[in-house]
């Protein structure tokens, strides 16, 4: 960890987000029938990963935690962090992709409620967009990690 990263705010938020997001990626991928086929569910302790209802419940629980964390992070940024730090281009990129993931996920949750029916084409678009945006986010996160581009930077007026 370099000195610059050490002073960036919200370390616990980013840490929690990383763990949550990894869980969401795993349970999200588990919505595809691949864990049993590719022996993931055969790994001791991961038998549950082939239970679609269980992974779905975990994905929903994780989504609730992600939403709570996002609510906290956005409010915290707007109320206090924003005065000293600004979102970087890499930060905005991540925020926009995340907004897309949350938005498409929310539509899918709505669609799964009783008496809610969306057109088949729209539902399919949302399904594929949710997965595609997740892949995009993982790619972007990897790129920004390699190029050391952080979410926020200190505002010039507060530097030094």
């Amino acid at each position, binding site marked *: 960890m370099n000195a610059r990263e050490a002073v960036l705010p919200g370390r616990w938020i980013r840490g929690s987000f990383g763990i949550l997001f990894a869980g969401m990626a795993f349970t999200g991928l588990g919505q595809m029938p691949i864990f049993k086929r590719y022996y993931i569910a055969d790994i001791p302790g991961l038998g549950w990963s082939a239970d679609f209802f269980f992974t779905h419940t975990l994905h929903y629980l994780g989504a609730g935690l992600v*939403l709570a964390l996002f609510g*906290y992070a*956005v409010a915290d940024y707007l109320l206090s962090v924003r005065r000293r730090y600004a979102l970087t281009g890499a930060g905005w990129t991540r925020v926009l992709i995340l907004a897309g993931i949350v938005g498409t996920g929310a539509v899918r949750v709505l669609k*799964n409620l009783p008496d809610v029916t969306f057109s088949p084409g729209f539902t*399919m678009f949302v399904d594929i967009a949710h997965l595609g945006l997740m892949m995009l986010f993982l790619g972007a996160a990897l790129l920004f990690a390699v190029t050391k581009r952080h979410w926020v930077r200190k505002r010039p007026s507060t530097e030094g």
Partner: protein
Amino acid sequence: MPRDISRRHFLKAGIAAAGALTASRLPLPAAVRGASSKELATLIDIRKCIGCGACVEACSWTNEAKFPEPKKPFPKMYPSRVKVSDWSERRHVTDRLTPYNWLFIQEARVTVNGEEKTLTIPRRCMHCQNPPCADLCPWGAARKLENGITRIHPDICLGGSKCKKVCPWHIPQRQTGTGLYLDLLPSFAGNGVMYKCDRCFDRVAQGELPACIEFCPEQVQKIGPRDAIIQEAHAVAGEIGGFVYGEHENGGTNTIYVSPVPFEELNRAVQKGPGRPHLRPVEDAMAHADNLAKAMVIAPVAGIGAAAARFLRASGRDAGKEGKEDGS
């Protein structure tokens, strides 16, 4: 084989003639005509079914064009534990659900009013009100239409069989060697297409009745707005001291059965297994999702509230410090 063909052709011709004669007299629910936001349900009065199989035949020839024509040999599957599912050489099987048989007649030897009888029960997709197959399909291939039909789109389905696993009755059936997966990674992802009753969505869209309803000589089935069908099911059940199945199963379905004997008894009597669904009570498979969805509305509000509380506490501390500094 020639015997089968001639029999099939005879039945087709007979059914078509009977249909033409009776179609004009069938009361077509207003909601069936054109698009409607109202869900349509079917009522299946088990007492009336004589097990003639006309519905099975009608389903078969009406939906023939939708049946798979798999490409062979099938792609080699990896890993080797993935088994192909091939019904293309067994298209004539009618005593269970298959990719080529979306409706079959289940038999139950039971006692009705002290008399031993064999009841025959047309079985197919229940068309749930909140179908887990459509909710949990990762591609949107399984979908619920506004008129209450749940169908699997054969051009999108990859044949992962998740819909079958999450269906409380395990209705959809897989055929390998057909569908989109052949154009993607045929050896590594997907395994064909899942097939099941689509309640003749194309006929219904044109204001026609599903084939199994139209060509039943005993008028075993009816279709109409769900509320009316439920009302009628209870009226019939009340009249005969009978029982209703499908109203609350899996949170509610659009296939309502009325039986003169309890469904527990029917469930014990019918042959169950792959392609032969049970008649047990079924909990709402998507109830967990409905409850957690409500929690999701509160979650971001809680997060915002926590951040605001932290901000206010910090502001209070800062104001306190400033006050002390001013006073000193």
